[in-house]
């Protein structure tokens, strides 16, 4: 069955990165465009750059930890490094990551729309993001020194520390505003710009993931907004709400902080899970197992996940009653996540599995996120958390779920959509080798951290007892292998960006809407010919066919229905 693009049989009007007259859009074309694809690339360039910088900061930290009496960094410098590494990774890379890069580039396409609901607001969100990033980075150079409070900005230290806390905090505040605006844009777009026939239950699950995330962005981010403002107000005016000498309660700061920051981790992971949900059907050539369950589990994770923040505070002075309550809710939220994993694996059963690079990363995601999730149970249980809180066990846990989860989800998305976005193919073999280098290094690094943590190594320390030395060295070496794998992976993609062979419209045989467009897509998605949707997103046209199954005419749609019944 011919794809939409093939039936019209010509090259795209003008690809998204060129102007109408065929010239390259150039920097100006990108910085002034409200086109969702260009904005997605603006975010991608910024985010990957910040990711690289933050990785370097991490490498420096690991070098310090090669020996217990290392003079490589001072304690103050180390404090600043882990703070900036955290702030950059969390607020500049992981939280915005998938929604702003792939949400922007693909959400309108996936729902059959032309652009986001508020394109100018979209571009403004990017500028706000860049301003926030600039303020955060500037706080390193100006003022009284780089912030050293940890990315969590706990009081009372953040109130008393003489370094440039207000500036860093203000930068994060701006980033939060950008996040809220993006969330508003996403929710409105999904409600208002779906193509005819695209009911909610025919949406690709990646859309469900990004959509659920957007709700959390709108509801939870304001809370950290006001919390950060309160830090600044406390420092400048001294109202006393977090100052024990005035009756304030530092633990209330932690409550307010984590009311956002725990749902934030679901902002991080839900879009990644959504993309994984898109990949499993494609690479198993089989419909997803339990579509509605996965869709609703995204909403369940978003809502129940907003109730568990106290599990960061078991040993802070929180009451036992609250701790027990939060522990119970924490165990509850593991259920929808586990449901997703079962459904993904069930999708593969009796499918025709092809482990191309995107799927390799998806499988990596499953493995690493599961390990991370299981260690989360150790942390969620009160008794074992007392032992592991503030140790490397926590650091290992969140790197498994965030880096192994969202990170590998991001890498999977990049490898999946790269040919579509740029119209070029990359070297699959090299991508596969890079994956394994990355995967091995990752596990050597973070598994060792879990072991170190269990053995009592505290986090955020720039030195340690000599008995931990061997494991620390192993971890550092693992980090080097891991970073090597990252370098290979990105190097492969960058090379393909410049020298890759031309990609076809549908290299993976996907059945979602983006594969009916040419690679790369045109500036306008559907060129006044929006699709009419007649079936769900994971209906495949035979086990081996790579032709897309979307058609725009009712007759062809009926033919697709008949074919579907045949399977």
């Amino acid at each position, binding site marked *: 069955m011919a794809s939409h693009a093939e039936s019209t049989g010509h090259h795209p009007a003008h690809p998204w990165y060129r102007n109408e007259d065929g010239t390259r859009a150039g920097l100006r074309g990108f910085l002034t465009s409200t086109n969702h694809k260009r904005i997605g690339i603006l975010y991608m360039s910024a985010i990957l750059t910040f990711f690289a910088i933050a990785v370097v900061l991490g490498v420096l930290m690991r070098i310090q930890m090669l020996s217990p009496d290392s003079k490589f960094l001072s304690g103050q410098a180390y404090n600043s490094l882990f703070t900036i590494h955290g702030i950059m990774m969390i607020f500049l890379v992981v939280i915005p990551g998938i929604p702003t890069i792939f949400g922007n580039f693909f959400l309108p396409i996936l729902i059959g729309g032309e652009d986001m609901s508020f394109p100018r607001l979209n571009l403004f969100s990017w500028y706000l993001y860049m301003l926030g990033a600039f303020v955060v980075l500037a706080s390193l150079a100006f003022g009284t020194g780089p912030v050293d409070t940890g990315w969590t900005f706990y009081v009372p230290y953040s109130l008393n520390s003489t370094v440039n806390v207000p500036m860093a905090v203000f930068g994060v505040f701006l980033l939060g505003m950008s996040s809220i605006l993006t969330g508003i844009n996403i929710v409105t777009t999904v*409600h208002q710009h779906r193509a005819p026939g695209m009911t909610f239950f025919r949406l690709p699950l990646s859309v469900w993931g990004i959509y659920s995330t957007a709700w959390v962005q709108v*509801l939870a981010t304001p*809370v950290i907004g006001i919390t950060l403002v309160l830090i600044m107000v406390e420092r400048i005016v001294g109202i006393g709400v977090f100052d024990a000498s005035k009756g304030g*309660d530092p*633990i*209330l700061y932690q*409550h307010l902080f984590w*009311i956002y920051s725990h749902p934030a981790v679901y902002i991080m992971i839900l879009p990644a899970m959504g993309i994984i949900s898109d990949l499993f059907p494609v690479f198993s050539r089989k419909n997803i197992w339990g579509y509605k369950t996965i869709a609703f589990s995204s909403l369940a994770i978003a809502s129940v996940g*907003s*109730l568990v*923040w*106290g599990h960061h*505070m078991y040993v802070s*002075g*929180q*009451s*036992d*009653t*609250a701790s027990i*309550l*939060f522990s119970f809710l924490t165990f509850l939220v593991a259920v929808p996540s586990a449901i997703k994993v079962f459904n993904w694996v069930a999708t593969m059963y009796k499918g025709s599995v092809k482990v191309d690079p995107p799927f390799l990363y998806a499988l990596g995601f499953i493995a690493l996120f599961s390990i991370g999730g299981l260690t989360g149970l150790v942390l969620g249980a009160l008794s074992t958390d007392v032992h592991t809180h503030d140790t490397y066990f926590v650091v290992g846990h969140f790197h498994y779920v965030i880096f192994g989860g969202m990170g590998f989800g991001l890498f999977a998305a990049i490898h999946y959509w790269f040919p579509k976005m740029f119209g070029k193919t990359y070297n699959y073999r090299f991508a596969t080798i890079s994956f394994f280098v990355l995967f091995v290094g990752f596990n050597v690094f973070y598994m060792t951290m879990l072991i170190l943590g269990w053995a009592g190594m505290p986090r955020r320390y720039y030195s340690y007892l000599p008995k931990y030395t061997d494991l620390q060295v192993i971890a550092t070496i693992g980090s080097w292998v891991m970073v090597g794998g990252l370098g290979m992976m990105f190097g492969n993609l960058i090379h393909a960006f410049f020298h890759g062979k031309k990609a076809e419209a549908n290299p993976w045989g996907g059945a979602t809407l983006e594969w009916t467009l040419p690679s790369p897509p045109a500036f306008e998605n559907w060129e006044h010919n929006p699709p009419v949707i007649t079936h769900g997103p994971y209906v495949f046209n035979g086990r081996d066919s790579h032709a897309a199954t979307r058609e725009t005419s009712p007759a062809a749609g009926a033919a697709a229905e008949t074919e579907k019944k045949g399977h």
Partner: protein
Amino acid sequence: MTHRSHFLRYIYIWIALIVLTGITVTTAGLNVGRIGILIVLAIAATKSTLVLLWFMHLSTEKRLLLKLLVPIAIGALAIFIGLTYSDVLTR
């Protein structure tokens, strides 16, 4: 409905708001003890509902999700405050 009755409806809502304000101020003057906070919150919620429904036109809004948005926000807030109370009140 005529323009005039629409206009009057705004006036009636305003009068209701002023009356409720008067009630809440008077109640505060009396000594009703711990129930006082519930009464003032209930009256404030009523006033807000009037503003939301009639001044902000939620009563004529067709899309269900939009009508639920504010209750969802209040609900989220209530849960945040409630769970935090579970800590602060039991220490």
